[in-house]
């Protein structure tokens, strides 16, 4: 900053030539000792030229006007690069990645403490006898139910039945919702026609489709997938629509000036720009998939369906096994969290962080 000040005073006194070299010395000094020497040499040379009078315009010294001009330019050049290097160094945004210790402390520890607190309150409530054990089982009883399933060997098959159904249904919803969202976002007539319906469908609990799906398709996997699709497709499509709506018009203008129009504009500019909204839609789409599936599994009962988490939960209710019911609820919750944490949150974090929009205000 001081260098610019010196430059300013120098130039107002003597005209246009001096300011550059004046700043050059200090600018170069700021960066490293090697350029310091040349910077000062150069400054001296240019100053002496300036004392002769305005070098570029002086008609009395036509002998080497090119040389002085070139010298002056070289000096300005060095001045500029030093100054710019300094500015860049001062302005550069330092991105600090947290150490593993910090991550453990800030990200991993809090949820563990929260879970332990819940377990503690739960255990205290049971020990204090707030409620009879047939209605509120102890954490230990739920743990026992988990151990039973483990020993029985069907814990993973129950979870997997539901998870693979949920993920397959989600992938189908992805394949349908993405083009649907694109068309709704980009074709005004289609948006006018089905945009409101698509938004409205999001507020319709997809469990409401179960009776219809069962009558149309029978109590089988097809009905399950139908319910998942009806739950997840609107979320995914709407996510993409709002992602596209929120693309700053500036990006589209900038895209057009570099020749990204039509399909190339959609592929190189529009879709990548809409990615954050799209990923948020995917995340919500998964949540809706999983919810819809659990509701469908709870309601529809058939040997064709096998035992998934929803069925397991309903079986436990029929047997009045409260510990089993609690285990069912916790497993459904656990799977929902796990899929989100393994797939969707990292995806969202990556998308946002690569754009400098890290979630959680960091």
């Amino acid at each position, binding site marked *: *900053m001081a260098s*610019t000040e010196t*430059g*300013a005073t120098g*130039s*107002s006194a003597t*005209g*246009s030539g001096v*300011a*550059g070299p004046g700043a050059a010395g200090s600018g170069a000094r700021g960066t490293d000792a090697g350029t310091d020497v040349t910077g000062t040499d150069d400054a001296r040379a240019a100053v002496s030229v300036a004392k002769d009078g305005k070098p*570029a*315009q002086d008609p009395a010294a036509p002998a080497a006007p*090119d040389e002085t*001009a*070139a010298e*002056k*330019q*070289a000096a*300005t*050049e060095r001045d*500029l*690069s030093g*100054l*710019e*290097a300094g*500015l*860049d160094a001062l*302005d*550069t*945004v330092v*991105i600090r990645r947290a150490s593993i210790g910090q991550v453990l402390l800030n990200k991993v520890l809090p949820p563990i403490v929260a879970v332990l607190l819940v377990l503690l309150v739960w255990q205290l409530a049971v020990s204090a006898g707030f409620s009879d054990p047939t209605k509120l089982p102890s954490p230990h009883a739920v743990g026992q139910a988990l151990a039973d399933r483990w020993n029985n060997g069907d814990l993973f098959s129950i979870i997997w039945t539901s998870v693979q159904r949920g993920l397959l249904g989600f992938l189908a919803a992805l394949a349908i919702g993405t083009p649907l969202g694109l068309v709704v976002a980009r074709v005004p007539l289609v948006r006018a026609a089905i945009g409101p319906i698509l938004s409205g469908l999001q507020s319709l609990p997809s469990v409401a489709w179960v009776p219809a799906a069962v009558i149309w398709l029978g109590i089988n996997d097809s009905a399950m997938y139908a319910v998942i699709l009806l739950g997840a497709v609107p979320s995914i499509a709407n996510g993409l629509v709002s992602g596209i709506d929120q693309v700053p018009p*500036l*990006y589209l*203008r*900038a895209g*057009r*000036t*570099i*020749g*990204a129009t039509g399909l*190339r504009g959609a592929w*190189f*500019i529009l879709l*990548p*720009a809409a*990615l954050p909204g799209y990923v948020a839609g995917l995340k919500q789409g998964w949540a809706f998939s999983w919810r819809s599936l659990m509701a469908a599994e709870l309601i529809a009962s058939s040997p064709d369906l096998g035992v998934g988490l929803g069925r397991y939960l309903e079986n436990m209710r029929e047997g009045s096994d409260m510990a089993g019911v609690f285990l069912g609820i916790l497993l459904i919750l656990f799977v929902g969290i796990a899929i989100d944490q393994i797939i969707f949150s990292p995806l969202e974090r990556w998308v946002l962080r*690569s*754009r*400098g929009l890290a979630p959680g205000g960091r």
Partner: protein
Amino acid sequence: MADTLTSAAERTTESAGYAARLDHVSKAFGTSGTQQLVLDGITLDVRPGEFVCLLGASGCGKSTLLNLVAGLDAPSAGSIATPGGRPALMFQEHALFPWLTAGKNIELTLRLRGVPREARRPEAERLLDLVRLGGAFGKRVHELSGGMRQRVALARALAQDSQLLLMDEPFAALDAITRDVLHDELTRIWSETDLSVIFVTHNVREAVRLAQRVVLLSSRPGRINREWDIDIPHPRRIEDTAVADLSIEITEELRGEIRRHGQH
């Protein structure tokens, strides 16, 4: 670096011709009932390699004019010719794509221009070197300072390899020190290449510091009010007395123009 420099005087002034020719260009917005005339009969030739600043207060249609020259919008009347191909355009906001690195932003422009894959990386590196951001290829946009972003945006505009660069108040959002450095940088790059520049600003000193010709636009509707040819030799500084004197003269003219709008 120094030997690639050619001074503005040594630069080959192109044979007859123009980088942009605006012939009685008018632009009106709105429906036929409530039409608002934004630009009225703008006639302007930009010579090859010339640096022209368009100067004006709010409502002079500076940005509209650039959009027309850039081909993002069509004039209501008159014609615009840019023989050097689609002009490159730089905005006040850097408008870099945040999902790409600095280098990839430039590579995308090269790709859309049809540069073969293997030539893109070296060309992008060369352009980053030109704006002195040699090490910034892999940097994300949000990791760069405001001045660095505008330099990447300049490199991206240069990647279009157009004869004409349009700049829409590109340094208005920068702090004074950074802006000053970028003025030098732009002058340097302009004098090293055979680029013609139309630079829009409302900052009189910026215009006088950079341009060979300053064109003052009146407001509502935008008309060409007056032009000044500037022969102050480069490198100029914003504090130079010659720059200051001319700035005062132009500012007076601009103020008179603005005052005129308050009188009715």
